[in-house]
C-alpha cells in the first residue's frame, strides 16, 4: 500500500442482454477512503461492483485503477491488480474449513507486498480463529461475512469492494461488522461498500454516493449527509 491509489469509473454503461442496468456511472475513490454506495434494491449497486471486479464487461466507459484501464481484464487479473471483492451473497467455499477459505485466497498484493497473513487476520478477526476448523458452510451469516472480508484481505488488496455487508445480519453482528470496518479504515484499507442501511453507512463511511435506477444522484462526504436528508429519504427509505 505504498502508492496513492485511485479507482475511477468513467461513464460506464452495463447491460444484461436487452436491459440496461447502468447509465453513465462515474465514481472516483481515493486511497484510504471508505465510500458507501447507497441505493435501493435494484438501483445498480451490485452491477457496479461486478463491473469493477470484471464479472461483467461495461458496454461503454472505462474503469481505471491507478490510471490503467482494467475493464475487459479477466477477474483474476483484476484481483491481482489489487481489488478484493466481497459479493453480496458472500460465496464462501462451503465445504472448505474457515482456514482453507483463507488459504485459498492467499496471495501477495499488486506490488508483491504481503501484509495480511493468517496471523494478522486472526488478530483482527479473533472469532475466525476460534472457528478456524469449521466448514464455512456451517457458519452463521455474521461469521460468514467476517470470513469473506478476511478472505478478501488475504489477497493483500489495495481496495476492497463490500457488497451489502450488513444485509440479513442481526443488529449485534451489524455492530461488529461496523467496528471491523472502522478498524480497517484506520489501518488505511480503501473500502467501497454497497449498502441500503443508511445508519450503518453514516457510521463507517467517509464518502457517500447514492445511485438510483442506474444513475448516480448524489456524491458527498459522509458527514454532510444530515444536510442531504431530503435526498436520502427520497432515494433510500420510507
Amino acid at each position, binding site marked *: 500500500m505504498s502508492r496513492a491509489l485511485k479507482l475511477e469509473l468513467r461513464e460506464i454503461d452495463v447491460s444484461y442482454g436487452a436491459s440496461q442496468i447502468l447509465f453513465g456511472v462515474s465514481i472516483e475513490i481515493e486511497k484510504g477512503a471508505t465510500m458507501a454506495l447507497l441505493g435501493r*434494491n435494484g438501483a445498480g449497486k451490485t452491477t457496479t461492483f461486478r463491473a469493477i471486479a470484471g464479472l461483467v464487461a461495461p458496454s461503454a466507459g472505462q474503469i481505471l485503477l491507478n490510471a490503467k484501464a482494467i475493464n475487459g481484464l479477466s477477474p483474476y487479473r483484476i484481483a491481482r491488480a489489487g481489488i478484493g471483492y466481497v459479493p453480496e451473497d458472500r460465496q464462501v467455499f462451503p465445504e472448505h474449513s474457515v482456514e482453507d477459505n483463507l488459504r485459498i485466497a492467499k496471495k501477495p498484493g499488486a506490488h508483491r507486498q504481503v501484509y495480511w497473513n493468517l496471523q494478522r487476520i486472526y488478530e483482527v478477526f479473533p472469532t475466525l480463529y476460534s472457528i478456524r476448523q469449521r466448514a464455512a458452510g456451517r457458519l452463521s451469516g455474521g461469521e460468514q461475512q467476517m470470513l469473506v472480508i478476511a478472505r478478501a484481505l488475504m489477497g493483500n488488496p489495495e481496495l476492497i469492494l463490500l457488497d451489502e455487508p450488513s444485509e440479513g445480519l442481526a*443488529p449485534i453482528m451489524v455492530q461488529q461488522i*461496523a467496528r471491523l470496518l472502522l478498524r480497517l479504515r484506520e489501518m488505511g484499507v480503501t473500502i467501497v461498500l454497497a449498502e441500503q442501511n*443508511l445508519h450503518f453507512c453514516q*457510521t463507517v463511511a467517509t464518502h457517500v454516493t447514492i445511485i438510483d*435506477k442506474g444513475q448516480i444522484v448524489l456524491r458527498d462526504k459522509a458527514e454532510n449527509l444530515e444536510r442531504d436528508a431530503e435526498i436520502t429519504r427520497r432515494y*433510500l*427509505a420510507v
Partner: protein
Amino acid sequence: MQGRLTIKRLTKRFGGVAAADNVNLDFAPGSLTAIIGPNGAGKTTLFNLIAGRLKPDAGEVWLSGENVVGLPEVEIVRRGLSRAFQIASLFPQFTVEQALAAAVHARWRQSHSILRRFPLPSARARAREVLELVGLEAVAGQASQQLSHGDQKLLDIALALALEPRVLLLDEPTAGMGREARWQMIEKVHNLWSQQSLTLIFIEHDIDIVFQIAQSVRVLHYGKVLAEGSPREVRGNPAVIEAYLGATSASVPV
C-alpha cells in the same frame, strides 16, 4: 369465504434462519394489502409458502375456506390463487399474445389439446381482452424477451390475471422501474384490482406507492410480522423505522 386468504402459525426455517416465524395473517376478500419489509425479511418466502412452491415446517394456509398446505402448486392455482414474480418470469420466445393465450389455455384446461392449432380462437379472444385490460395491445406481436422492462413486468401480471384468480400475489410489481413507470404501473394495478373483485396482496419497496394505494399494510422483519394496520399507523411505528434505516444502535462508534 371466496377470496379470503388466512395464514395461521406459518413457520419455515432454512438451516438456522427462520424465513417465516409463526406468521398469522388474514386478508379479507377483495382487499388490497401491501407487504413491506427490508431485504431478507421473508416476504418472497411467504409468497412461496402460500403458493405451495415451498412446504412450510408448520402452520396452515386457508384459501377460500380450504387449508391448501400440502396441495401441489398446480392444485392451488386451480383453486384461484395466482402470482406474478419479482423478476418477470416469462416465456422469452413467446409473443405477448401467445403467452397470454397459453395462460388462458391453462386456465381453461386446454393446454393438452393436440388436435387443434394454437391458439384456439376463443383463447385468443380472451387473451386480447386481458391485453386490453393491462394495456399491452401495442406490443401484442412482440417476443416477450424484447419487451421493455416495464412491459415485461406488466406481462407477468397479465399472465397471472389471465388465470382469473380470486387471490393475486404480486411480488414487487414496480421493481427496477423508473419513477414515472412505477406510478403508471401501480395505477394500472390499482385499476385492475378495483375492476376485478380480487384479493390483491403485493410486496413493495417503494414506500410512497404503498402508502398511496394500499388499504392496509403488513410489515415483515426477520420472518415475523412486525406491524400491521393502515398505512398511517404503520408509518408512525418506530419499530418499522428502525427496521428500515438500520438500528441506530448499530451505529455505535468504536
